């Protein structure tokens, strides 16, 4: 048997969602886009993965899923799974349950796939009032998200905070595999200069983004 992973202290938002859901009837699903895996991360595989995670949390695989599986098994060749089929199964089984869908790095999904995936997520949201969608991505995909989800999205800009940079640096220095070549002076310089550089970079980037 492979080791359990569950919700054990491995993320921020997903941990929060899992913790607060407690023993309730809630599903938390996630997906991480990666440009290097763009061929495998097709809409069928991505949406299928969401359904797989949802179904995995149930005591029993729903009849609608088993039926479709049996049907394709009796067919000739291929996996036989298509986006409309996944959506049909989702709609049949997920409407009443509270779901949190978390999607990372939307910008790393190729545009053709992204279009299908956003449309499918829109349909899931439309069909299930208990569903919430959390996504991250580069600012460039923001307008596409707004357009494809009919404008029903809230946006937050993620910026590195000084506290975050300092925590990160401290962690990296603590895990330094060659601490003997680090002097106190160099360490102090790193802790002073990098947060400053980060802050300047952010100001510069923000200013550039505001230019017409």
């Amino acid at each position, binding site marked *: 048997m492979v080791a359990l992973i569950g919700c054990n202290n491995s993320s921020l938002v997903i941990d929060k969602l899992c913790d607060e859901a407690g023993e309730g009837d809630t599903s938390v699903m996630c997906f991480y886009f990666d440009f290097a895996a763009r061929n495998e991360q097709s809409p069928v595989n991505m949406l299928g993965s969401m359904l797989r995670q949802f179904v995995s949390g149930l005591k029993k695989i729903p009849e609608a899923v088993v039926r479709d599986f049996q049907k394709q098994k009796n067919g000739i060749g291929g996996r036989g799974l298509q986006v409309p089929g996944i959506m049909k199964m989702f709609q049949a089984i997920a409407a009443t349950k509270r779901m949190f869908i978390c999607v*990372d790095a939307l910008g790393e999904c190729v545009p053709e796939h992204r279009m299908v995936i956003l449309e499918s997520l829109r349909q899931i949201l439309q069909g299930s009032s208990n569903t919430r969608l959390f996504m991250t991505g580069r600012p460039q995909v923001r307008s596409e998200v707004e357009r494809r989800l009919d404008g029903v999205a809230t946006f937050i800009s993620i910026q590195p905070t000084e506290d975050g940079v300092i925590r990160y640096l401290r962690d990296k220095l603590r895990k330094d595999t060659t601490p003997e070549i680090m002097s106190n002076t160099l360490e102090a310089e790193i802790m002073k200069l990098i947060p400053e550089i980060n802050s300047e970079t952010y100001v510069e980037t923000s200013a550039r983004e505001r230019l017409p």
Partner: protein
Amino acid sequence: MSQGFSYNNNSFNVANTFNYTASDDESKILAWLSPLEPWVRHRDIGAERVDGIGAWLLETEEFKRWHNAPREDEFNHPTLFCDGNPGVGKSYIM
């Protein structure tokens, strides 16, 4: 033949953290739905994450409203999108 199988390996569902023996068919059905295993990436990110970074997000009104407010609330959107430039730590926030 049946194999030992934990449903929690495929899901972040918190209501069912039990282990049980699934039939071959159940494992085949799950593999048929998708061969991808995003929980592997989730685990890797979790191992690298520095505690406390990004915690401010959970305290924002936008997050709280998205997480808690009823859908009927006209100001509450079912989608929360966090955008940021490469390297700012978006994946670690999720």
